[in-house]
């Protein structure tokens, strides 16, 4: 990557373009050397970004949006190289600048904030020291005043108690707070360009809003240019002037944010827009125009009639010992007893709800609200501290979690997991994964009967038969999600717990999977308990919605009522935090 630099040439360039665009990318093609030969990740990308402008790059996984931004900063890994084209950043030829010059630019003139803030920070260095490193590197501080300056920056990104947080390690901070630290790191030297690579993926909607508002405010007041890379069209539209849509390494459309929503030109942009969950639509509206009729025809009349309760949860409580709680032993030595508040944390705090036969109920809330703990207890993987879980007339809450795996009721409750990749055994083929519950609990023992059932299930979830012999790493995210669903419905369960089944999927795949789930529910008459943080998605699939906060139910009602006329202030806050495309 070390190019030959012509000092005179680039000195001339930087003096002659003081008023030109800050960043200009022309015909950029990036290639990666892989074992299977050279792969073009980005081809012929053009991009112009003026001072103070905000550009959103939108695309699904594999669209080349991240590679483009890494190339601008020249932090591609060694397998990647710029095959063609030019990148000019405030008059500097990024493709050919020497590494030392690039290093000075990074962090000082252009910086980046990353997805997954906790992993983006050094886990064993205090956050203050990490910000200090950047300041010292770019001579924005000297060892005597560095701490003072870091605390100043922490204040700017609204970190409460910055003097204490200076000494905190990333693991001691929440996800939202870690992202503020990453932002502090990126803004420490007041760069001219900031690239935000999926800065809020994995954060709760309210945290996402807080983080994005902070970024917007800080970049605006400093006159910085921003590139926001995201898969979420709504987010890009809400925060960017211009939106650039990428697909498979190519730019398919670039237009002002408002226009791209009003009048999308490219079919891919239209497809993405349709697939984005938004208020006032049905599941069918998510699918591309052509596919709607085909999907609609497969929907048959509901098998079971709603009414009879299938699952009843009463006053369910789950307590955990509070982490870092003062030790009871030490307290006794000091002659005082600890209150329950100090030692016990209630993840689920006395909730009651009901799921009827054939009904789908959404359990919504932000991370830590107790929704996953609740679903895990219903699944009987952990024991409740108190309360009753009645399933199909039987008190399954009384069966110890360790015995439930062998209980006849077990096959009537199934689960679809959040991460379609992590939840599959990498050494099992698709067919073997689907066959697993049949072999364990379905009374099958291999042979033609099993194969026929697996083939039938694959057909039901729309997984092509020729993919059945493949391993997870040979399948796409959507295909793996289908395997997860096929496995869950294999034993004809009455209740399927869906734990954020689409959170790891691209929006267009999510649209298809949500429709598939709805269709299967209609066909098989199952009930769903849908756990999610995304109110829009829940609203599309569910009849009723339960909103949880800090272990309690704050609101419950039909999906339409909760989404359109939320009664609780917290629900309103949640809905308001979801970025809306301007349509």
């Amino acid at each position, binding site marked *: 990557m070390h190019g030959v630099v012509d000092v005179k040439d680039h000195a001339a360039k930087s003096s002659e373009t003081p008023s030109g665009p800050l960043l200009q990318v022309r015909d950029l093609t990036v290639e990666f050397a892989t074992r299977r030969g050279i792969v073009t990740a980005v081809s012929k990308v053009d991009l112009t970004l003026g001072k103070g402008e905000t550009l959103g790059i939108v695309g699904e996984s594999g669209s080349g949006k991240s590679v483009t931004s890494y190339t601008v*900063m020249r*932090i591609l*890994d060694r397998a990647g190289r710029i095959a063609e084209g030019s990148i000019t950043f405030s008059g500097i030829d990024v493709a050919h600048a020497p590494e030392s010059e690039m*290093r*000075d*630019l*990074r*962090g*000082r003139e252009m*910086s*980046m904030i*990353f997805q*997954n803030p906790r*992993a*983006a*920070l*050094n*886990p*064993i*260095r205090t956050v203050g020291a990490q910000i200090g*490193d*950047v300041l010292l*590197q*770019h001579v924005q501080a000297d060892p005597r005043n560095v701490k003072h300056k870091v605390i100043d920056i922490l204040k700017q990104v609204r970190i409460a108690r910055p003097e204490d947080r200076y000494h905190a*390690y990333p*693991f*001691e901070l929440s996800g939202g707070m870690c992202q503020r630290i*990453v932002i502090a*790191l*990126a803004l420490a030297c007041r760069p001219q360009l900031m690239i935000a690579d999926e800065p809020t993926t994995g954060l709760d909607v309210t945290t996402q809003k807080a983080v994005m508002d902070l970024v917007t405010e800080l970049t605006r007041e400093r006159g910085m240019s921003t590139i926001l890379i995201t898969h979420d069209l709504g987010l890009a539209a809400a925060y960017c002037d211009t939106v650039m849509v990428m697909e498979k390494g190519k730019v398919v459309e670039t237009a002002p944010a408002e226009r791209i929503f009003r009048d999308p030109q490219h079919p891919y942009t239209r497809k993405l827009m349709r697939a984005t969950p938004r208020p006032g639509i049905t599941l069918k509206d998510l699918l591309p125009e052509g596919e709607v009729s085909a999907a609609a025809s497969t929907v048959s009349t509901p098998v079971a009639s709603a009414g009879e309760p299938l699952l009843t949860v009463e006053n369910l409580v789950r307590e955990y010992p509070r982490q*870092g709680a003062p030790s009871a032993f030490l307290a006794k030595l000091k002659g005082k007893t600890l209150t329950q508040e100090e030692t016990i944390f209630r993840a689920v705090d006395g909730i009651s709800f009901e799921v009827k036969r054939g009904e789908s109920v959404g359990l919504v809330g932000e991370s830590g609200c107790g929704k996953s703990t609740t679903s895990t207890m219903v699944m009987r993987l952990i024991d409740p501290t108190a309360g009753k879980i009645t399933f199909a007339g039987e008190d399954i809450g009384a069966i110890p979690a360790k015995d439930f795996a062998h209980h006849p009721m077990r096959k009537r409750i199934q689960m679809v997991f959040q991460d379609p990749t992590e939840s599959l055994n990498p050494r099992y083929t698709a067919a073997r994964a689907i066959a697993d519950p049949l072999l364990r609990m379905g009374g099958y023992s291999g042979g033609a009967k099993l194969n026929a059932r697996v083939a039938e299930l694959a057909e039901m979830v729309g997984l092509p038969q020729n993919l059945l012999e493949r391993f997870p790493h040979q399948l796409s995210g959507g295909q793996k999600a289908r395997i997860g669903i096929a496995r869950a419905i294999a034993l004809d369960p009455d209740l399927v717990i869906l734990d954020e089944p689409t959170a790891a999927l691209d929006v267009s795949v999510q649209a298809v999977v949500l429709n598939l789930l709805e269709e299967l529910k209609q066909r098989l008459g199952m009930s769903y308990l849908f756990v999610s943080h995304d109110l829009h998605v829940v609203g599309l699939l569910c009849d009723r919605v339960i909103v949880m906060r800090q272990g309690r139910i704050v609101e419950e009602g039909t999906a339409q009522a909760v989404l359109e006329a939320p009664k609780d202030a917290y629900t309103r806050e949640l809905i308001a935090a979801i970025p809306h495309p301007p349509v």
Partner: protein
Amino acid sequence: MLKLLGSRLATAVPSLIGVVIVTFLLTRVLPGDTAAYFAGPAATPQAIAEIRTKLGLDKPLPVQFADYVSALAKGDLGSSLSTGQPVATEIAARLPASAELTLAGLVLALLIAVPFGIMAAVRQGSWIDHACRIITTAGVSLPVFFTGLLLVYVFYFKLGWAPAPLGRLDVFFSAPETVTGFYLIDSLIARDFETFRAALAQLAVPAITLAIFALAPIARMTRASMLAVLSSEFVRTAKAAGLTDYTVIITYAFRNAMLPVVTTLGMVFSFLLGANVLVEKVFAWPGIGSYAVEALITSDYAPVQGFVLAMAILYVILNLLIDLAYGIIDPRARSEA
């Protein structure tokens, strides 16, 4: 931190009790009759029986064990039959010799293997990466007694750079006053630099022998864990913030990569204790390994039991130190305590 130390020490107690029981039983089931061995080849059955009674070997096993444990509780490890010396004294005298040699080998291996592993990871696929692989593979493939003999042949016999491989100190020097039992440290404390040089000269070749053996696991582990850390997201953040290669590699990557290396170190140390037995033989090193081997051959129970117990305690202490090192490097380990 103190709490962590306490709990770790407490968990070590059951394993030490286990070691006491198992070594006692193992030495008893080993083939070979101690009494017959000491009575000599020409002894009559009566003489052997007499010796057996004298040694207490005719008592039932539980009684023997009770005797052993009650003596152990008083700090008495018994006496060696062949030398007549108390085992505790012998081990106390010989353990520092072994420890000095093993630690010297380990430190030497670390000084070479860690930078080597880092460079191999940073310049993955370059000549230095290949050199690292070849040297470490060669080092671990050669048995220590062979490398030991080869080094003696080259450095003592052919080149004459090293002194004769006969123990810890040349005969013309007297051992420094015992403070730690480590000649290198004791001679420095006594400000006897001549003795220091002589001890160092004696130590060099056996320590290199051990170091060559220990190179491979440490270098490989450093390389693998550096590679993993270098491709992690926080290293990318550090690069995107424009930090220099040195800061990225040392402050950000290496400190994180050290965690698995420290864990490996514990295992390497125990391998080295095993390899030590052979090295001590080759270099006539008056260590604990050669002492134990001789005792084992003569079915001399007390030294063998003493040796195993000493090793077990050493290993417990070592693991404690590793846990402490972990706590120093990784704040997450600290907060768990």
